[in-house]
């Protein structure tokens, strides 16, 4: 009897619509965030993360309404990331019904923002998103740096030091994405996950690279993650969240079934 490891489907949303093709066979509108979120809830998702890729101010308002809609009908924790830059952005999302917000580049430009956010709303709702890329050459000791702009822009910040600093600043959770692995379907960067999970006491969500159910198991068992986040393996109907949980349970991981 103990805390279950979590599975978190991640949805990209643009202008209030789910993008990057969710392909459930029997869903009426695969772009409707409410329908998709409901489906994941029924499958047993432990949380849902929305990554807002909307570029315009008007589109961001649409996202707020979308969060309101989802939160009125889906009663599991919701996280919203993307474009969270000001205290006011956080307040707006929490009031709309989000439980947590994920902060990424705003923390890099102004680390104190994380402290302010935690003081204002509590650590429990501040997820710090870390996009890391390996920068060490072969034969060298492993080193990862933080990258922004979808992995295109380096910051020179050491990822492991950054994780420890963000914990000290009050972040309640870390969402760690390997930019090397993201989209490759070859599994998490387990070395990166191990390095970070062994350094911080707060929960770490592993992200980037999931291509099969064993990858989820490895993220928890080898990477030390408290939660695993995946998109495409669930969206394209390859596996349900339920199947993922059964696979994890079969290998001795405690899950909510």
């Amino acid at each position: 009897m103990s805390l279950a490891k979590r599975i978190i489907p991640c949805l990209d949303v643009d202008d209030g619509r789910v993008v990057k093709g969710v392909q459930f066979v029997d869903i009426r509108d695969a772009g409707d965030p409410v329908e998709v979120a409901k489906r994941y809830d029924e499958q047993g998702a432990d949380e849902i993360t929305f990554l807002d890729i909307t570029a315009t101010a008007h589109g961001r308002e649409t996202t707020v309404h979308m969060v309101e809609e989802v939160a009125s009908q889906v009663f599991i924790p919701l996280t919203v990331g993307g474009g969270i830059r000001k205290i006011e952005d956080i307040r707006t999302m929490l009031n709309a019904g989000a439980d947590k917000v994920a902060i990424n580049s705003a923390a890099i430009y102004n680390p104190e923002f994380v402290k302010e956010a935690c003081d204002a709303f509590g650590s429990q709702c501040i997820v710090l998103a870390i996009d890391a890329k390996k920068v060490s050459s072969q034969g060298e000791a492993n080193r990862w740096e933080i990258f922004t702009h979808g992995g295109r822009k380096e910051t020179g910040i050491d990822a492991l030091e950054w994780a420890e600093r963000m914990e000290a600043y009050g972040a309640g959770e870390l969402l760690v994405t390997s930019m090397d692995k993201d989209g490759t379907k070859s599994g998490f960067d387990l070395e990166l996950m191990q390095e970070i999970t062994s350094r911080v006491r707060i929960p770490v969500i592993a992200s980037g690279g999931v291509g099969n159910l064993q990858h989820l198991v490895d993220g928890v068992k080898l990477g030390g993650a408290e939660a695993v986040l995946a998109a495409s393996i669930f969206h394209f109907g390859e596996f349900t969240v339920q199947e993922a949980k059964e696979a994890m349970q079969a290998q001795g991981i405690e899950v909510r079934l």
Partner: protein
Amino acid sequence: MDQKLVAVVDYGMGNLRSVSKAAEHMANARTKIIVTQDPQVIADADSVIFPGQGAAKACMQALTDTGMVEPVKQAAQEKPFLGICMGLQVLMSHSAENNGVDCLNIIKGNVTQFDLSAHPELKMPHMGWNQIHQTQDHPLWHAIPQDSRFYFVHSFYVSPEDKNTIIGETTHGQTFPSVLSAHNIFAIQAHPEKSAEHGLQLFKNFLEWDGH
């Protein structure tokens, strides 16, 4: 038929929307859920939901600033009362959070931080889905299976003086009281508004409860 009024206490902290939406989702046509800062509405309500999140000190400060201390104390004495998360912790006498904070003293006992020094593998905050072991019967457990999982987010836990008030326990390194009941009060450390079907069932049970 008479309408039933359920007040969700708004003291300017936390996301009350999830709580009111979950209650509305399970309410029948005759039940009205109102998020309110008005002591009169709380006094008139048939039952009261007292949510909360964040830190104890800020929570007590917000209760004081909004004039909600007395209405909440009054409601906790006389009508079905559901405390959630920080809405459980501030019912106690004292919390060790923020270097010590006096709380509402409605249920005698203290709030202390988890000591996980013997469990380096466990994370803090205690965040995620954990089981609640029902240690006593209660009307609000109706149709909720033993050891069901609920969503938790917290780093402190309650220790009531009267152990008979404990009706649910959870384990994270140590076993701690996760649900207390005293007369018309049912107070839970987890977030039923975020706990899917079992959480919704708990709201349904609360809305049907007469406080006995």
